[in-house]
């Protein structure tokens, strides 16, 4: 239990560090957000006023403190009639979108979530399945096909796979829409139809890594003593495959958590190709317009999700493998001298 608390505390620490480092871009980039808002011509007085309104007129540590405080309690930009409210959790305010960053992120998040969940399910099922099939008969035709495909998938960039998919499936064959997003609540079928291509693109790119990992680890596991014991007991190969997969749960959960985190943080290129206005697209736009509060907010949300995904993997691992929970405790030793059981003495 204390181990779980330790992990949670460590994750919080990581978040604070990430946020502080991200916040530093306000000071490291040559962009002055106040100058952008000041209008033209920009008099020194106007600039100063804009600074004050945006909260840039205090020392950096004060700004950072206000920023952290805003996440917990919300904050107000400016004062009196011109005041802009930013409710908790306030991750800043975009003076380009004229909207608080939290609200912007909340709008985009469902799209990214839809992409990520579908992709992760598809890539785990396909990747793990292909790896298991290939491991059953190493060297067979099926194994060679899977191995070749996984090499292609691991080395193909997203924009190539995604563009090919759009060109062939949408434009040439006209089977699926080439882009855009339909909310789930407006109709799950349209929602899914719009997401099939991005899901398959991501699943193809990431799934190859799963297939390779599962294939080689399965072959190794199937050669271990416990698999031999199960085989000798007459268990069918299908059951022994499941034993082996169960032993791969820990590395797989680790890998899936990394991918879930990365996908939730926004699949930048895929979202751009399929015209999906998710977190990745938002981040890309904010970067090109130097919308610093949005960059900071999106980066923070991304790191939060990555940290959460890894935290859940950390908490799950000892459940999946009891040896980790016992901290590699040494095996019990045979109590010697062994007292014969009553039956043994009788025989």
């Amino acid at each position, binding site marked *: 239990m204390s181990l779980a608390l330790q992990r949670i505390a460590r994750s919080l620490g990581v978040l604070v560090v990430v946020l502080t480092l991200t916040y530093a871009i306000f000071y490291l980039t040559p962009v002055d957000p106040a100058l952008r808002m000041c209008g033209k011509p920009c008099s020194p007085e106007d600039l100063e006023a804009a600074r004050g309104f945006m909260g840039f007129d205090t020392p950096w540590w004060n700004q950072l403190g206000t920023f952290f405080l805003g996440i917990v309690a919300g904050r107000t930009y400016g004062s009196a009639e011109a005041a802009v409210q930013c409710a908790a959790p306030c991750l800043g305010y975009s003076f380009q979108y004229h909207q608080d960053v939290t609200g912007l992120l909340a709008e985009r998040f469902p799209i990214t979530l839809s992409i990520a969940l579908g992709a992760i399910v598809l890539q785990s099922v396909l990747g793990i399945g292909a790896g298991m099939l290939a491991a059953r008969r190493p060297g067979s035709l099926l194994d060679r096909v899977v191995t070749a495909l996984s090499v292609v998938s691991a080395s193909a960039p997203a924009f190539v796979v995604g563009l090919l998919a759009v060109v062939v499936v949408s434009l040439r064959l006209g089977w699926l829409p080439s882009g855009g997003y339909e909310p789930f609540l407006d109709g799950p079928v349209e929602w899914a139809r719009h997401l099939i291509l991005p899901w398959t693109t991501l699943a193809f790119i990431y799934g190859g890594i799963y297939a390779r990992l599962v294939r080689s680890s399965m072959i190794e596991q199937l050669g*271990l*003593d*416990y698999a*031999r*014991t*199960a*085989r*000798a*007991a*007459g*268990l*069918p190969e299908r*059951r022994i495959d499941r*034993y082996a997969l*169960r*032993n791969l*749960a820990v590395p797989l959960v680790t890998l899936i958590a990394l991918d879930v985190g990365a996908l939730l943080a926004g699949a930048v290129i895929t979202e751009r190709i399929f015209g999906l206005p998710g977190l990745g697209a938002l981040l890309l736009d904010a970067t090109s317009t130097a919308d610093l509060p949005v960059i900071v907010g999106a980066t923070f949300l991304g790191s939060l999700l990555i940290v959460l995904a890894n935290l859940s993997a950390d908490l799950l691992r000892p459940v*999946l*493998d*009891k*040896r980790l929970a*016992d*901290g*590699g*405790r*040494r*095996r*019990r*030793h*045979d*109590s*010697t*001298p*062994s007292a*014969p*059981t009553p*039956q*043994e003495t009788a*025989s």
Partner: protein
Amino acid sequence: MSDGDELLTLAGLHVEIGERTIVSGLDLSVQAGRITALVGESGSGKSISAMSTIGLQPPGARVAGSARLRGDELVGRSAGDLRRIRARRVGTVFQEPGRSLSPVMTVSAVFRDVLAVREDLRGRERVRERTAELLAAVGLPDPGRTAGSYPHELSGGELQRVIIALALAGDPELLIADEPTTALDVTVQRGILELLRRIVAEREVGVLLITHDMGVVGEIADTVVVLKDGAVREAGTLRQVLTDPQDTYTRELLTAVPRLEESVAARAQIVPPEVPEGAPPAVRVEGLSVEYRRRGASHRALDDVSLEIAPGHIHGLVGESGSGKSTWGKAIAGLVPVTAGTVELDGVDPSARGRAERRRTYARLGMVFQDPASSLNPRRTIGWSIAEPLHLAGHAPRGGTEARVREALELVQLPGSYASRLPHELSGGQRQRVSIARALIHGPSLLIADEPTSALDVTIQAHVIDVLREAIAGAELACLFISHDLAVVGSLADHVTVLRQGRVVEQGPTARVLGDPRQEYTRNLLASVPDPERRLHEDDPAPA
């Protein structure tokens, strides 16, 4: 059960992998209610023979000949048929119980699957009852606790009983036991052998026992088949094979088995060299304690132990797994942090000295480890590996090393030309002799040998021990010989320390400690050592 009730009959069994013939024409039979031992050293083909009969040969192996289980031919059957035969009619027990169960599953989960296949048993309550019944039948005192445990929560002995219980599910006719006690301590081994004997008597199963250990054969087998390089060298009843072996290889195998009583008696005749007046002991350990800390809890691996080894003497350190014997060796070599006590090498406590002198002091040590295959760099020549301590100690006279490598090789009775070979070109026994040569080349004053012969076949073990004994006598150095094998220690050591759970049980001259033990634990340990001929001296050689 009447004699001659043929259960398993192998006739001219032939196994080939690629172009290599692994087993050529094996004839063997197992009777119900009897134990047939298939004896051989590593590479003899004994495991492959047994596994091939039930369809578990390595991929690519071709099996020919005949293997009949109660008249049903097994060779040439489909994989599905063989799987059903394994599930319904054969139980199998392997070496290394610690690795024989999936580490992420509880014992009860394994039983659930195995009972479904072997007994068509389903339903939580019925499976639980049958599991408890089987676990109780193999002498596990608390079946409920065992069933709820993961493998790492059980000891080696408990695990092997669990494996045997799994093998007994479905009431098989035949039990194949492949080195079932090789990885276990002697006292635990005795319990498992007693269990096997009881199962055979009660359940009328036939057992095909695969082993390299003549002691184990003598304890439980009825019939013996000796295999070498895939061919049968001798077959007969236990009494015939032990008392009147016809084949030279069988005789070699029998004489290579170290006998405790003989070796202790022989050892008593050897007078250890005089210790020069006033010379400090090669090693002096006093009040040594080593504690491992893990997440707050501390585990005392060694608790206030002491010993002294004079130059020219061999000190045997015996104990079962987990007794702390390896930790003791490492503590002397400065490889584990010492919690309390002192270690002196040639009268110098290295931990109290500066860095340079500490290095010089530890350079007076030589070490030999258990597994010769992994303790030599596979990409370097034997000569390079042997010369390494000279280079490390910094006193490597350029050009002079070659002569010293040759000398070291001669010391372990290997030709000097071996210096240019690579480790994989050598056999296990030769590699271990190379390890000894490496440990001795820089003229150490103390040799620490940690289970140096445990990974070797008996005939090779006997030779390596002879080599070690002569090398030590020639170099006049002290030796700490760590082993679980009492007979080996008895044949080599001048003094013995018996260690149990980090504490010294008994310490003294070998002849006294092993010949006339004062402690119950030592007596128990000695009584557990399997003796090939013990049952021959009993009036009725067949088991009840």
